């Protein structure tokens, strides 16, 4: 019998199967749905991590004082809650000079940061201030401008503000060329950054004025960041810089007292964590798939039993063993396929709805979690369910094919 005829008969059996046969594929549906949802949320997390950290630029490296052991992975993120900090020796101009001497570094940006009272039209808010080297900063920042310009060297009393500072800090939105007061001094807004999820709350200004406002000495930096000429050389440059700083800070043979982190490394670490998590959850979902496969096998055994007489009839009118085998294998593959398709639809549904709930709970709203359903995942999920279906149907189909025609015919 031709394969398309066998398929036609298999489809016929599937369409006429009873409700309980459909119920048994729920295992596959749930398994596939869970895997699709988990993987797509995982992928989405990767994408949003990449987007946020990508905003930092993979070729940007940040150095901050203090060294954290063991859990130093996420150092340089936020204001570094250093728990096992060994020493608090500040970053100085000497360190900037040392870093500038390393090859393949394009720009070095010394940063001071802190909070300052900012007033505009009788409203006052405490906002984050970052004092930067205007030239280096303008060349390193990856966030685009929504209006105005970046800082220029030689700018005085001028600031560039993050999108949230502009849009939602004061009753009236801030626009370019408006003057605002920071710690009693007037500043003119020359640029507003696009929203990037990173640094949206920060006011950027030339470092000298920031030191003045934040009361920091002229030889003090809260952090130093630099841009590597080629993202592929980040690791080598980080090593080189570390060694030179160890020498210049006279730390040879002692413990490192600064942290040096590349955005790339953070990205990789977060990715590996999300990946591990995705695989772990995916493995749990796979168990459900396995249970689903056993469910299909069970249904197939019942179906073969129910169809014993029909198998006998088909054999009497010329069906060969392999025809029967093909019909039942295809039937079971179709059950898997149907389960896979339903599972994918359900999974996509869950992956679109779940983040909204999670976002609400964890305060990750603001479109925080996105989900991504890769096409490869859809194809793999369908292939796996079809394969599981065939696997589950193999033994029942084989049994069906081996039924003796005379016994099958007599079966009532």
């Amino acid at each position, binding site marked *: 019998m031709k394969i398309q005829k066998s398929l036609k008969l298999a489809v*016929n059996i599937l369409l006429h199967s009873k409700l309980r046969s459909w119920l048994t594929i729920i295992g596959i549906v749930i398994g596939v749905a869970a895997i699709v949802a988990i993987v797509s949320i995982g992928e989405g997390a990767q994408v949003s991590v990449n987007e946020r950290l990508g905003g930092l630029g993979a070729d940007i490296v940040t150095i901050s004082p203090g060294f954290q052991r063991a859990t130093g992975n996420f150092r340089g993120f936020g204001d570094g809650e250093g728990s096992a900090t060994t020493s608090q020796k500040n970053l100085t101009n000497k360190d900037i000079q040392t870093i500038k001497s390393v090859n393949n570094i394009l720009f070095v940006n010394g940063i001071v940061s802190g909070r300052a009272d900012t007033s505009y039209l009788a409203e006052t808010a405490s906002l984050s201030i970052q004092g930067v080297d205007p030239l280096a900063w303008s060349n390193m920042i990856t966030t685009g401008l929504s209006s105005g310009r970046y800082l220029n060297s030689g700018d005085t009393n001028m600031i560039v503000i993050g999108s949230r500072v502009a849009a939602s800090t004061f009753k009236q939105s801030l626009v370019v060329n408006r003057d605002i007061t920071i710690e009693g001094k007037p500043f003119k807004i020359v640029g507003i950054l696009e929203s990037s999820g990173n640094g949206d709350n920060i006011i950027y200004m030339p470092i000298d004025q920031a030191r003045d406002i934040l009361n920091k000495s002229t030889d003090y930096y809260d952090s130093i960041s630099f841009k590597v000429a080629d993202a592929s050389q980040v690791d080598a440059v980080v090593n080189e810089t570390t060694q030179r700083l160890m020498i210049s800070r006279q730390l040879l043979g002692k413990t490192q007292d600064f942290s040096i982190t590349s955005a790339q490394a953070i990205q990789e670490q977060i990715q590996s964590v999300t990946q591990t998590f995705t695989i772990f959850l995916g493995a749990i979902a796979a168990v459900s798939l396995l249970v689903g496969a056993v469910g299909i096998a069970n249904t197939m055994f019942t179906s073969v039993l129910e169809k014993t007489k*029909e198998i006998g009839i088909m*054999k009497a009118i010329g069906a060969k*063993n392999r025809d029967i085998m093909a019909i039942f294998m295809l039937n079971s593959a179709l059950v898997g396929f149907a389960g896979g398709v339903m599972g994918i639809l359900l999974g996509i549904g869950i992956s679109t709805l779940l983040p909204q709930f999670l976002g609400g709970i964890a305060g990750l709203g603001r479109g925080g979690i996105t989900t991504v359903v890769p096409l490869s995942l859809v194809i793999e999920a369908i292939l796996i369910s079809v394969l599981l279906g065939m696997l589950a149907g193999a033994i029942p189909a084989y049994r069906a094919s081996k039924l003796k025609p005379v016994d099958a015919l007599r079966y009532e």
Partner: protein
Amino acid sequence: MKKSLIKLENVWKIYLMGDVEVAALKDVSMSIDEGEFVAIVGSSGSGKSTLMHLVGCLDLPTKGSVFLDNKDISSMRESELAQIRGKKIGFIFQQFNLIPNLTALENVMLPLEFQNMDGGEAKEKAMALLNVVGLDDRMHHRPSQLSGGQQQRVAIARALSTNPDVILADEPTGNLDSGSGSEVLSLLEKLWKQEGKTLIMVTHDLNLARRSQRQIHLKDGKLWSVKT
């Protein structure tokens, strides 16, 4: 002299019921010629169904040989037997035995599809046969939407679809009222006369058996008498 189509030589069929051996057929020898209309008659338990299964290549004898077209089927593999069933034998059952989820047309096409016949050709042939049995207006009905007589006529069309040498009818009217029963029988007789097929009918009804050319009576698994 006519050619012998089916020949049984000292055929035994022994079933194992638990630990007890039960002989359904005991040393049966007989021959059926090409183009003959034979009735196999016997009460229930006489072994007539077993005999039909052997002649129809649905089962193999425990001892002895069954020849179809001078070929010994006793030593054939299942795939070869399936081939013979598909090509040379058309079955008509008491229970009609149509596939419930297929339409009349699809049921008649099925044996042709098992023989790898092209879909369009199979459909044409099946439609022609349904026309012959007078069901051209019921082609797309499922068995459950047909009366018993109609179902049996579909089964006859199905049995004829591969143009077999032998039609094996197992109590073809057993589940029908007398009206449709005699219609079905007339149809079978007509086909036998027109197409020159060998018709073997298993029945316990002596009135039906009388319409055949020859009656083979079975009792307790033994050949009892042969009436011509």
